[in-house]
């Protein structure tokens, strides 16, 4: 081992890295919000009796879950580019991650809806609740509890997956790390520092999630 560690450049650029970490958090969080809404719609589409809706949902879910996430980003980057659709690096990452999140979350939501007994809905309707009230007040809170941990996992996964952004030129944490590393050649130091930041972000998410779960699901 004749590699000499030089930490000073990394320390000097720590503010840049932390700022890039915020971008990582931002794009992951946004992609989760969009992925949750789309995932809910996909789950309902897959459960619906409408054939085209089911077919559309199945195609999306299958592609999102069974192809490399990197290829999904490339599709929204270079694939669409080939048809003259040019997304900014940020949008490529956001759209790609949202697509992937929606596919995974849709399956979780579908399982959640199927796990809530039909009679819960019937009981709510028998009290005079509208379909909307029964769904939002009785069914969805129970679905949410079932999908809560899978959603937390997906959020962690989104943070880690967002590092693929460096392959499409977006300078979130991984992209910024690569940019700085290649300028100074302190490659190992930069990636080690970035790994620590990823680790801390993930631990914070898991901790917050546990705290929230404790507040939300005291009923069991």
């Amino acid at each position, binding site marked *: 081992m004749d590699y000499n560690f030089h930490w000073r450049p990394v320390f000097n650029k720590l503010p840049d890295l932390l700022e890039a970490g915020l971008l990582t958090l931002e794009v992951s969080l946004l992609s989760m919000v969009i992925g949750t809404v789309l995932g809910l719609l996909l789950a309902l589409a897959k459960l619906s009796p409408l054939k085209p809706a089911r077919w559309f949902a199945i195609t999306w879910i299958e592609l999102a879950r069974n192809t490399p996430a990197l290829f999904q980003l490339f599709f929204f980057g270079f694939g669409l580019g080939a048809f003259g659709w040019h997304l900014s690096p940020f949008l490529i990452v956001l759209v790609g991650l949202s697509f992937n999140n929606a596919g995974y979350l849709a399956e979780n939501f579908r399982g959640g809806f199927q796990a809530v*007994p039909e*009679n*819960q809905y*019937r*009981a*709510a*309707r*028998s*009290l*005079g*609740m*509208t379909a909307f*009230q029964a769904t939002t*007040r*009785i069914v969805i*809170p*129970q679905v949410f*509890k079932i999908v809560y941990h899978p959603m937390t996992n997906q959020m962690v996964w989104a943070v880690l997956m967002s590092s693929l952004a460096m392959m499409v030129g977006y300078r979130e944490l991984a992209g910024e790390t690569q940019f700085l590393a290649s300028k100074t050649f302190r490659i190992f130091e930069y990636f080690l520092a970035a790994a620590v930041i990823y680790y801390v972000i993930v631990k914070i998410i898991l901790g917050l999630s546990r705290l929230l779960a404790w507040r939300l699901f*005291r*009923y*069991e």
Partner: protein
Amino acid sequence: MIEIQNLHKYFDVHHVLKGIDLTVEKGEVLSIIGSSGSGKSTLLYCINGLEAIQQGEVIVDGVSVHDKGADLNRIRQNLGMVFQQWNSFPHLTALENVALAPRIVKKLSKAESLAIAEQQLKHVGLADKLDAYPSSLSGGQQQRLAISRALAMEPEYMLFDEATSALDPELVGEVLETMRMLAEEGMTMICVTHEMGFARDVSDRVAYFHDGVMEEIGTPDQIFGTPVSQHTQKFLANVR
């Protein structure tokens, strides 16, 4: 008054109710007995419009339940229903379980709905469980919770679908006691039940269902003492 006229119900081609005619007066307690699959639950679901019907009519206090313009959500407020599987809402406390529908369906204030909920939980003997979640209640307590939740809408009719069948034997008594109490208070009740003792002691009339047909209806003495239909005789011989 609940009037059922020539009611036919199909599930696809499966003819489940084959022309039911039945009138239940205010204050009456009717028990429905019959073998599994004879259409008893389905009849209750048709009364409060949870299932559509293919022919005939159900009229509750002069309003036809299955009319196109019928306000089902309003009609259901008047028809409390208790299911075999106690369907307490697991994410809400006992008090919230009972207070929710008065608040969001009847649009009562929070204070009013909580007051009603507390009163109804006391009514069924759950005064000390207001803040308990269903997961910490026994099956019998959950079923009484379901009864008080229905009562909180101040219905004039109560429909019971085998309210005790899913309970452990030692918990059946407390639920039957609650139903008996309601009957004594003058509630109009239709009870699908396998509890022959309850049907005999509490009901004004007992109806026997067989294969989608109401084969026989009469006083408990008639049905249990001198049943006319062979099917009824056979059924009663088996449950005794």
